[in-house]
Structure formats: C-alpha cells, structure tokens
C-alpha cells in the first residue's frame, strides 16, 4: 500500500516524463509517416553521404581529442596552482560553454579571419573556412567544458591521497601518474562521448565556417534536406543514421571504459601542495598559453565593437530590441520547462534509487534525458510541426515548438547540473527523512538551501542555451519570429559584419546578465560566486 501511495505522489513527475516521451514518439511517428522507408536502401549507395559521415566522424574525433588533450594539463594546472586571474578564468570557462555559437563564430572570424587580428599582427593567414575553422570553434567551446568535467573528477580524489603525496614528496608528474590519472580516466570516456556528440551534431559552426560541401556534417545535410529540398524521407533516414552512429559510438566507448561511480565525497576537499619542479612550471605555462591563445582572444574580440561609433546606432535600431524580446519570449519559457522536466526526471530517479528492485532505473532515466543529444533538434522540431499541422494547428504552433525543442535540447545539461547534488541529498538524508516522517514540501524546504545553487546553474544553462539557439529557429524563423541569434545571422549573411558584431555584444551581455540574475536570485547570494566554479573544491 505504501508503494501505491508513493506512486500516487509521483504522478506529476510521471506525467512530466511521460509527456516528454509522448512528444518524442509523436514527432518521430509523424516524420516516419511522411517517409518512404523502402527507398532508404538507395541512399546507402550514395558516395557523397558516406563522405559526409566520414567527415562528421573525423572532425568530431579530432575536436573532442584535441579538446581533452589540452584540457588535461589545464585542469591539473588549475588544481595545483593559485595565480592572479584564476577565478576569472574559471568563470570564463563556465560561460564559454554556453556562449551562443554564432557569437563565438564572429569572435573567431575577428581573430583568425583574413583581415583579422592574427593576420594584422603577425601576417599569419589561416584557412579559416574548412576543417581548421571548425576545429578552432569546437575547441573554443569544448575545451572549457572538458576542463570543468575533469575538475569534477578531481573532486573525487580523497584528501588523504593528496596528503600522502605531499608527505612522500611527489613531483607533479608522479602525482599525476599515480593519483590524478586514475580518477581522470574515469571521467574521460564520459567527457569524450559528450563532446563527441556535441561536435558530431554541430550545425551553426559547420554552416558558417565549413566553406562548402567538402566539409559538411550529417546535421548540415539534414538541414539541407529539410530546408531546401523539403525531402522528409531523406531527413528521416539521415537522422536515424545519426542516432545510430552516436549510439554505437557511446556504447563502444562505455564498454571499453571503466565505470564512473558517483561518489558521495563531493564535500569540500582540502588539498596539500606537491613538490614543484621546473618541468612542471614549464608544462603549466604551455597549458595556460594554449588557453590564452584559443579561448581568450575570441572573447575579447566579441566585446571589441563597444568602442565603435556604430555601436550606439545599432543600439537604437528597433529591429534589435524586437529580436531581444523574441529571444526572451523563447528562452524564459524554455528554461522554465526544461527545469521542470529536469526536476521530474530527478524525482523519479530519486524514488527508484532507494528501492533495490528499481536500482537500474536512475541511470536509464539519465540516459533517456541524454538521448536528445543524439537526435538532431531540427528533426524533432520538424516531426512535431508535421504532427501539429496534421492536427490542423497550423503555423501558429511554431512558437511553442521552438520553445519546447529548446527546452528538451537543454535537458541533458539541466540533468548534469541537478542530478549529482540531488542524489547526494537523497543519500545523506534518506534515513533521517524516513525516521522523522518528513515528506514532500518539507523535504524540498529543508533541502532548498543545499540545492538552490545547482537549480540556478541548471536554469542558467537552459536559459543561455535557448537564448543562443540557431538550429530550430533557423527552420521556423521568419518575420515576427526573429530571435537575436537569427537577426545576427541575417546581418552576417548580408555582410554587415560590423553591425553584427555590435548585436553580438548585446547578445552576450544579455546572456551574462541573465546568468548572473539566475545565479543571484535562484542560487542565493552566498553561492553566486561559487557557482561558476562548479564545486566548492575548485576554489580550495
């Protein structure tokens, strides 16, 4: 009986997850209804398709490989060294992951383009349009993400091990080899898969910096099939191919990789210094130099146009503020829905966690939420639109489709922010709750101060991801539904780059303000500074 009453209490969460599943299934079904599966075999013989697949794989492997390769020494350096600007760097890493793609591309063009800083200062010409441009952009986005994931891995190292290393006089290299690497290699496969998927389905970067059909990805092919050929059949086939490849990749990596156990020792860790050597200093310098070259200049470039006289005139244009309004109108509801969905997932997962016979479910739920990384957002949006169109809801629904798809796309990041902390509370207090009979509302009230920072982080991520979305809005956007990134894209498309750069400043400022507000008002005063660093241990 107790079980059933518990399930009754779970109803909202079940409804939330059920709605998520239903919408996914319905859009998939709608898309399949419009496609002719018997003709799919002919696509398999298209050599261009396989070239696209090969390029998608190749650039994703390179991007995630390079990102991790740079991230490992950077993370180690950040753990062992205190230096001026370290806190700012950590903040920057938190934001750069969710910088709107289109803004980052603009920054990259200003730095690495033919008339960019690099060619002006050093006369170096980089073939930006093609693989090099794609890699530069992907490393810019994902190296900071990788560093943050690795730092989380560092959090699992018990302080006893550091103390011992310190007492035994370990050098940095032995500390890395004997301690850090063991924890890192548990985090690496997950990070690799995540970054691989983000890069494999990269869209705006490839469309802007790819430079033609030679370096195109599967996601761009899907966009082309939908947007230009309106070939639903091909789009369904391609997206199924994409899902299969990503799934296969994830399965293979997880098979050969050690399991990353969520440890409860996430509380602040005290660390002890290890012996510094000349070699270690050199390695750290090189690592930081990489960051200095790859991450900082595009950021600075984004803010460069503040000093241009065009900036004020851009600020006065009504089109800009219209776009800001549309962006807010999309991002706020999307972030709210995403957070709600995330809470539904976590509540279910927590319920299952405590029950032995449901033990396998939490990780399954997490995978379900992450599934969305494999399915192109464009495809979900199209399926959803076709389904609603058949129900005669027409094009008026497109606004809600954009909101919903953005919410769903942010879900993996919301879950990543929410799950560890909420799991931890469940582990710590479960028996106490049971013995004292504390339930529902009271539980949330008790936990609120502990979880609000992660809630704020989840909300902030969802908000920023939706604010910067270029995929779904590109499919639906037209007059009346021009978001800030789309407005920016249109300006760049007509080569009004300078004006575009000014709009980019507005977009990134909006992102920073909203991120700050969400961490300040949801996260609370004390945690707002800490949030960006992720765990408290990062600021030890």
């Amino acid at each position, binding site marked *: 009986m107790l079980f059933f009453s518990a399930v009754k209490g779970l109803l909202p969460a079940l409804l939330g997850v059920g709605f998520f599943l239903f919408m996914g299934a319905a859009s998939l079904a709608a898309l399949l209804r419009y496609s002719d599966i018997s003709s799919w075999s002919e696509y398999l013989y298209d050599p261009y398709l396989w070239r696209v697949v090969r390029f998608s794989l190749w650039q994703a492997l390179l991007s995630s490989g390079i990102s991790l390769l740079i991230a490992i020494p950077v993370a180690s350096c950040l753990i062992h060294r205190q230096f001026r600007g370290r806190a700012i760097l950590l903040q920057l890493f938190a934001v750069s992951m969710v910088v709107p793609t289109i803004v980052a591309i603009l920054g990259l063009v200003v730095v690495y383009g033919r008339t960019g800083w690099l060619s002006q200062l050093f006369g170096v010409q980089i073939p930006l349009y093609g693989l090099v441009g794609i890699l530069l952009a992907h490393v810019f986005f994902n190296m900071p993400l990788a560093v943050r994931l690795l730092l989380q891995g560092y959090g699992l190292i018990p302080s006893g091990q550091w103390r011992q290393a310190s007492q035994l006089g370990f050098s940095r290299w032995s500390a890395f080899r004997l301690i850090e690497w063991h924890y890192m290699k548990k985090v690496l496969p997950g990070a690799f898969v995540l970054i691989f998927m983000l890069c494999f389905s990269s869209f705006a970067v490839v469309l802007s910096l790819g430079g033609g059909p*030679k370096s195109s990805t599967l996601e761009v092919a899907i966009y*082309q099939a939908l947007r230009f050929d309106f070939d639903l059949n091909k789009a369904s086939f391609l997206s199924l191919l994409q899902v299969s490849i990503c799934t296969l990749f994830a399965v293979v990596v997880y098979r050969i990789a050690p399991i990353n156990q969520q440890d409860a020792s996430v509380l602040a860790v005290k660390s002890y210094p290890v012996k510094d050597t000349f070699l270690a200093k050199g390695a750290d310098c090189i690592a930081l130099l990489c960051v200095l070259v790859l991450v900082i200049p595009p950021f600075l470039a984004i803010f460069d146009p503040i000093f241009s006289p065009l900036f004020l005139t851009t600020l006065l244009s009504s089109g800009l503020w219209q776009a800001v309004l549309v962006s807010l109108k999309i991002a706020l*509801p999307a972030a709210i829905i995403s957070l709600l969905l995330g809470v539904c997932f976590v*509540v279910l997962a927590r319920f299952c966690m405590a029950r032995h016979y449901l033990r396998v479910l939490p990780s399954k739920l997490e995978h379900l939420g992450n599934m969305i990384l494999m399915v192109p957002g464009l495809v979900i949006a199209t399926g959803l639109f076709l389904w609603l*169109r058949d129900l005669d809801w027409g094009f008026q629904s497109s606004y809600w489709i954009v909101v919903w798809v953005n919410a769903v796309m942010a879900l993996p990041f919301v879950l990543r922010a929410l799950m560890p902390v909420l799991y931890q509370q469940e582990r710590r207090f479960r028996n106490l709750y049971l013995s004292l009979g504390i*339930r529902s509302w009271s539980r949330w009230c008790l936990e609120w101060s502990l979880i609000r920072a992660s809630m704020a982080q989840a909300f902030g991520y969802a908000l920023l991801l939706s604010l910067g979305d270029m995929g779904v809005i590109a499919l639906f956007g*037209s007059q009346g539904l021009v978001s800030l990134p789309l407005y920016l894209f*249109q300006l760049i498309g*007509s080569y009004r780059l300078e004006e575009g750069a000014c709009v980019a400043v507005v977009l990134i400022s909006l992102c920073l303000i909203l991120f700050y507000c969400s961490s300040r008002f949801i996260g609370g005063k004390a945690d707002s500074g800490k949030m960006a660093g992720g765990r408290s241990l990062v600021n030890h």
Partner: protein
Amino acid sequence: MKKLSFSTLLTTSLMTLSATLGVAFSSATLAAETLNVYTYDAFASDWGPGPKIKANFEKECGCELNFVALDSSVGILSRAQFEGKSSQADVLLGLDLNLMEAAKKSGLLAEHDVNTSAVTIAGGWKDNVFVPFDQGNFAFVYNSEILKNPPTSLKDIVDNQNLRVIYQDPRTSTPGLGLLLWMKSVYGDDAAAAWGRLASHTVTVTKSWSDAYGLFLKGEADVVLSYTTSPAYHIVAEGVTKYKAAQASEGLYPQIEVAAMMKSAPNPELAKRFMQFILEPGFQSTVATGNWMLPVVKLNEALPAAFDSALQPTKVLTLPAGDVATNRKAWVNEWLNATTR
C-alpha cells in the same frame, strides 16, 4: 508519501507564468486585408525593390502588403511545402525557371489568369502557373583594376588554376543551380571532370548569392558568380566602374525569376490582383535599379545607361525545363561527387 506536492505547485505556477508570458508577447493576429508574399531576403530588404513595390501596390489595393523574407529562393518553396495547406502565403515571389517543375509538382500552386502577351522574354511566355517578373544572365564578375587579363569564356574560368573563384551551392541558391546548368550545357558529359578542375581553385562554395558577393567585395576572390547586370549596380548606386562581367564565348545562361499564387491563399482576390500587378509599371519599373535585373515588359522610360554595358549574350544557352527537372538531382550529385573527392 506525497513528496511531490512541491513540484506540483511549481509546475502549475510556472506553467501559468509561461502561458501568460506567451500570450502577452505573441504578436497580434494579422488583419484580414493583408496579402502575404513569400520572397527572398534581398528582394524584401530596405535596399531591394520590396519597399517600393509595397508602396505602389498598397496605393491602389487599399490593403497591406506583407513581405515574408526567407533566406533564399529555394527556401521559399520549401517553406511553403513545409507549411502545406496551413500556409499563410498568398503569393510566392522569387522562384526561377529551373525550380518551376519542382514547384508545380508540390501541388500547392494555383493557375493564374494574367495576360502575358506583352512579356519580352525571347520566345515569349506560355505558362499557366507562373508569371515572370525579371530576367538576366548569369556571369562571372571581376574587379578590372586587379584582374588585368579577365577570362573570356567559361572554359577559361574552369581551367585557369590561378584564378580564385567563389560560387554558390546549387542546392541552396538559384545562381548556383544556374552555374550547374551552364556547366552542363557547355561540357555535357564531361561536366564532372570540369567541376573537378574548378574545385582545385575554388575559395569557397557559399550558401547564397549575398554570401558569395560579399566575400568577393572583401577581396577574397578574383571572380564571383553573379549576373551581367551586377556592374550596373556599382555604376548607378556607387559610381564605381571597376567591376565588370566576364565575357563567355560559349554563350550565357539566362535566369528568369517567376511568381505564382497559392491554391490555399487566404486572400485569393488580392493574390490575383497582385499577379496582374507584377507585369504593370508599378512593379516592373522597380526591377532594374532595385533587384538589378532586367524588366520583362517594355517600359516607357529607358533604363539607366549603365545597363547598356550589360553584356549581350552571343548565344543564350537554355536546357529544356523537362530535362532540368528530371536530371537535377543526378546533376547535383555529380557536382557533389566531383567537388568533394
């Protein structure tokens, strides 16, 4: 164990909040007397012919003309197909000769009753769905101050390995598709090899005409695929004479841009009126110095002198529309395979 009432509360309150937000922000529904014309962004933009046409048409129809700007001409058709019968579009403006068959096949377009006998296109105009609104010829444009020995044929452009070329993707832009057919009509079965030779000195293949032309103006390439009338723009609008269209001894490939009305047009009467209006001076007089293409009917006043320098083709190459429709996919694949090897 009712541990979820908090999330229930949260759900309901936030749902209400987001719903309110949605309603508060959503734009007012369109008035009944609005004609929605889907077109490409360059046409509707402030510097295109769109605003003038809007003013001219609104003067006589007593309605509102609303341009919905999409990112390319190919995008116009796919957007209409995407929306299907629920589309708000009355008229699609900006498809071209080579997309006509595909557009007809979608089953979305209605027949017009416009008298097209005054149309000045070579060979006349006989089509019961589409009305042409401007015409021109594709050509490679170069900067005569930089390029001292300009190419004189398409073969020159393909084979000169020192020439940095930018052109458009035939899957996403009509000039790109035009070049595909131009190459096909000049090279025939050897087109794949020619594409291969061109690919080795291509800077980039862009999504749309404006991307390509913008890069060219910034000095990223020696020649760019555009129109014979493009130099006229620089002369009339900027007083710059250095940009010229390259000769092509094999002949030029024409572009004729067309419009059609939707079967499901919410305002069929206005749409019909607009289709008539396309061939009237109120529309045609804006074409030359707005869209930088040639009008399709004879106008009372002459075009600016700059247009006289627009190359007269030695020969107009046109592939039959039926052939284009049946082979388009195969030819695009041929191009893809040849350029990405």
